[in-house]
């Protein structure tokens, strides 16, 4: 004991608020360690990996047909984007050209998916700011789109639309009419939702929150509506057209906003809804005839894909989705790499959150539309620490059944 006093360099005014992995504002587990001083956020730590399922490694043990359904289950909201991206890479390796009609139908489902994803996101955003009524309205509108999915593909979420060299389900005249009718209804409802989003209380909650300026957005490689909300004019559909987007180039434009806050990102998505509805109507008007898939069986198509590698990009509802595919020439995969839009956007979150309030955390996190089941590509298991290794396995049978 020397008798001198020692000052601890610990700031007791900093309160650590765990945000996740299980939190009502998040539909998926992710862990934010938020350091709070009064109500202000001073630092944010992010931990991913809770929903890592090892899909990339798993796909290497499956053949191409099975892998198609597996990558569809990377994400339940943008499932069609994943298969379109994957099948695009396979078709590039195998030099298979789908028919015009198949490409248009692929695009149609893609845009319907963007529509449902954006409506869902508007609902979630309303829920985060505590506006339950708007959440209910958005979800009610979304049901109309899900009905179309069910009618066209037979499932509300996992459409299983793509096959190598074409699509699985065709549209007859009655369905084309039905899609068109639904679109005008959805447009009307979306117009109403847009009006409520222009409400003053909503605007107060969203504008000026989660700022990300143009320079930072570019530096952090953000994609999709997050980048477009910060003024970056980026859209894979225009830059590198896939499916039928090359032919449809004139029927849509890129929506951008320069403010770079949560409200700008909301506006981008709302206006994209209208762009998408326009595009769907255009697709329905220009739908070419012909067959939708090659006459051969799927096993033969699969075996026709030679050894090779390709990178494919699509504009998923959340932004640029990238697949790297290397095939082994025997109907299997040697390597699959997925880079999802949320992985690109989530690094921007720290910058958006610091300086904000605790009340803004869910709003900012939701504003990039995080899809964590897409994002979790790795999990770290530290066996030395015993974190989630062997000891837990012994616990598994603890509960009496």
């Amino acid at each position, binding site marked *: 004991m020397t008798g001198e006093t020692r000052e601890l360099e610990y700031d007791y005014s900093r309160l650590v608020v765990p945000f996740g992995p299980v*939190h009502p504002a998040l539909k998926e587990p992710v862990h934010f360690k938020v350091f709070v001083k009064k109500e202000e956020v001073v630092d944010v730590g992010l931990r991913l990996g809770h929903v890592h399922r090892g899909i990339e490694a798993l796909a290497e043990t499956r053949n191409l047909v099975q892998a198609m359904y597996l990558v569809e289950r990377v994400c339940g909201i943008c499932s069609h984007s994943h298969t379109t991206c994957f099948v695009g890479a396979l078709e590039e390796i195998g030099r298979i050209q789908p028919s015009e009609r198949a490409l248009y139908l692929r695009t149609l489902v893609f845009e319907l998916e963007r529509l449902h994803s954006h409506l869902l996101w508007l609902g979630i955003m309303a829920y985060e700011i*505590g506006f339950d009524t708007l959440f209910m309205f958005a979800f009610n509108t979304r049901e109309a789109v899900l009905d179309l999915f069910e009618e066209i593909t037979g499932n509300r979420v996992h459409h299983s639309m793509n096959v190598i060299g074409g699509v699985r389900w065709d549209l007859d005249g009655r369905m084309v009419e039905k899609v068109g009718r639904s679109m005008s209804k959805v447009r009307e409802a979306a117009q109403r939702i847009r009006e409520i989003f222009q409400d003053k209380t909503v605007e107060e909650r969203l504008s000026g929150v989660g700022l990300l300026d143009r320079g930072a957005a570019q530096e952090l490689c953000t994609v999709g509506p997050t980048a477009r909300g910060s003024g970056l004019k980026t859209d894979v559909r225009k830059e590198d057209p896939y499916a039928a987007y090359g032919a449809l180039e004139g029927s849509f434009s890129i929506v951008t906003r320069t403010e770079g806050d949560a409200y700008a990102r909301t506006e981008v998505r709302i206006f994209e809804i209208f762009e998408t509805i326009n595009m769907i109507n255009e697709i329905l008007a220009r739908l070419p005839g012909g067959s939708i898939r090659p006459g051969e069986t799927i096993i033969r198509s699969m075996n026709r894909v030679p050894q090779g590698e390709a990178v494919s990009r699509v504009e998923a509802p959340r932004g640029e989705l990238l697949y790297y595919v290397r095939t082994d020439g025997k109907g299997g995969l040697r390597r699959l790499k997925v880079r999802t839009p949320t992985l690109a956007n989530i690094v921007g979150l720290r910058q958006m959150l610091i300086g904000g309030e605790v*009340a803004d955390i869910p709003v900012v996190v939701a504003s990039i539309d995080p899809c964590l089941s897409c994002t979790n590509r790795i999990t770290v298991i530290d066996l030395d620490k015993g974190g989630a290794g062997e000891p837990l396995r012994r616990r598994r049978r603890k509960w009496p059944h």
Partner: protein
Amino acid sequence: MAALAALLASLPAAVFLSLLFEGIDRKLHARMQGRIGPPVTQPFYDFAKLLNKESVFPSSSSKAIFASAPVIAAASSILAGAIPLASLVAGTSVVGDLILILYLLTMSSIMVMIGGSSSGNPYGAIGFSRKMVMLIGYEVPLLASILPLSLKSQHSFSYHGIVQSQVGMGTCFAFAYPSSAFAAAAFLACIPAAAGVVPFDVPEAKTEIVHGYLVEYGGPHLALARLAKDAASFALSFLALTLFFYHPPLFEGHASLGGLASAILCVAFAPAMMFLTVTVPRTVFARLKVGQAFKFCWSLPLTLSALSVVLSAAGF
């Protein structure tokens, strides 16, 4: 003696009416969202279920405070709801019971807040600080809006005195003087904040801080904490109706049945008041941030109540 009997009978009535009012509120809320909604009896099932559940104590909590806080909160809220009912039925009241009612309402929210923060959960701590800010925000205009009524009814802070002075005037306070009209507006604007519903439910924001101070409560304690909130919103809407909108031609003139009939009529009209002050705001607004909520409380309701105090002092 009759007053005491009326009070004792009013306690279960207040519990019943609080739960019933929550059911009506939830039904209307759902209908305004285009849903069918839960049955009106739903809160009774919720309450009975929560009472029958196991109670869990977090290890970091101070058990005595954690367990007793919801009990005191519920008791004071129910009492705050029962006193106006009883004094309407019995036709008498004590001097200054209006102050007691408002004090009990504040007491109930403070107790829930203390209980939540004693759980040791960081969300509870944030909920505590937010509720503190909200209390400062709405208490001042709420109390100030009572003053003009007292001035206009022979300086009485007795609940029944104020109600009876409306009978004497033949019209209700909200329409009688400009000062009391402003006071009514201030009181109504404070109800959503005092009842803690959506634009002002910052202390228990579900998506931000996981129900705030309620986060660690489960089972019977949660049932009581919820009942405290329901009873508070019932008491507030009942108070607003009787203090400002007690319209004698409607509520009096049932001489044969006396106070009971007018009390029953008031209860029948109270859901309309609650629809206006609780259900509509929570349906058409997004949740405010704590700073915005505070700013709102200290701008509109405070201006209105200050105006009403000034006007009533000037004799309008």
